[in-house]
């Protein structure tokens, strides 16, 4: 494991009411790498992902213990600005969710709210190029974003995310609603984006995790249905020579 951490999860426990959904997660995320969270349904991978930019705060009854260290600060410290955090740690969801506005406005919306003073046209072009969408939409920037295909909408959501220049992009099953070609475009885009951003992705598609990620974390549930980290290593190690029998059984399709 390299030592270029951008994010440290320390003894992370997350509760939904009395139910402990995630227990004792310890994990260091490497800067400018793609880290994949894999595991069976209900193992807590999306819960952990959402904890990284405090999206779980929006779910009533959620309690988080432990630390998520980002830029030398625990983001769960009292007084920490969660709104500001979400500018630095953006999120792309499973289902593309562009605003029902023009393509250009989807990009400029966040920037405007954040008091961006630069040239908006340049920002639109730069962000759309960064999301490999510019060539397909440059002549119809004023069209409603909902008229784009699913794959284009998802890339627009990525463009919208990178428009505010985050450090980390969280992706929760970003390609699971897309066809194979659109999926491969998103995967290619993630590889390109990882030169400038750190990406953490939750995916059910193990081939996808194997193709695109540098590191893979495998989570599963214990006898109390709490999610825990079984193994975290370089993706090549996880998929060729995993150290834990449970990892081997899961990725080779022998349970799950």
């Amino acid at each position, binding site marked *: 494991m390299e030592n270029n951490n951008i994010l440290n999860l320390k003894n992370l426990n997350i509760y939904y009411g009395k139910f402990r959904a995630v227990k004792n997660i310890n994990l260091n995320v490497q800067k400018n790498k793609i880290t994949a969270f894999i595991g069976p349904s209900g193992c807590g991978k999306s819960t952990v992902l959402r904890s990284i930019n405090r999206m779980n705060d929006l779910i009533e009854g959620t309690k988080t213990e432990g630390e998520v260290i980002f830029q030398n600060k625990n983001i769960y410290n009292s007084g920490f600005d969660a709104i500001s955090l979400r500018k630095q740690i953006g999120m792309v969801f499973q289902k593309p969710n562009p605003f029902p506005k023009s393509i250009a406005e989807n990009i400029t919306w966040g920037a405007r709210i954040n008091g961006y003073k630069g040239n908006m046209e340049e920002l639109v072009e730069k962000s759309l190029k960064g999301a490999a969408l510019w060539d397909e939409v440059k002549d119809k920037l004023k069209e409603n974003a909902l008229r784009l295909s699913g794959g284009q909408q998802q890339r627009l959501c990525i463009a919208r995310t990178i428009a505010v220049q985050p450090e980390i992009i969280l992706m929760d099953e970003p390609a699971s609603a897309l066809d194979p070609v659109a999926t491969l475009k998103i995967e290619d885009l993630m590889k390109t984006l990882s030169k400038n951003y750190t990406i953490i992705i939750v995916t059910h598609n*193990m*081939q996808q995790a*194997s193709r695109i990620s540098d590191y893979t974390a495998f989570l599963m549930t214990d006898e109390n249905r709490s999610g825990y980290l079984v193994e975290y290593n370089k993706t090549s190690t996880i*998929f*060729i*020579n*995993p150290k834990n029998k449970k*990892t*081997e059984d899961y*990725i*080779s*399709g*022998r*349970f799950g």
Partner: protein
Amino acid sequence: MEIRVDFNEKISKLNNEIIKMGVLVEEALDKAMESLISNNPELAKRVITEDENINEMEVSIEDHCIILIAREQPVAGDLRHLVTALKISTQLERMGDHAVHIAKGVIRLQKNHNFNDIPLFNMPEMGKIVKGMLQQVLTSYLESDVEKAKSVALIDNEVDRMHDEVIKNVFVNLMHNQTDQQNATTLLFINRFLERFGDHITNICEWIVYSVSGNHVELG
């Protein structure tokens, strides 16, 4: 409920093919050595023609492995197992070729000399040892037995020692004019092919260790 039943069955069939190919190679070695020991060129010719069966098996195993890799997208132990099967089929095919080379040597000796006068030194014993190694390595593959694979590889040291001894003996005979250069050369080639048999089996041992543990090792 057990899952991946179909895939497991296909792996099991592949294992059987490897064993079948290994048995063909063992028979080829047996016949080649028998033709050498008993001065039987007809048997040697059979080794040459039957090598086609071994070559066909290699292609069949490769095809099955490639199809399984493409369609089942194996990872971890499954992937290592399939890569190992591919590697073993290549090693076995080379061993089949060496049996052919030995058989051709027998025919060469037969053509030019009074066969019964040619001393074979330790070579019959070497043939028995590598045959035993082959049988054991196939078992260790089937049983994923790393310890057995390691112990088989150690036997190769004895094969190497005997190989060196044969070389010395052939040269002594040559110096004392008890054999001619052509004969000596053919014997040295046969000796070399037997020694290579041991090397290929050692390679198979190394791949078995990789298949089971994921570690590349140098054995022998």
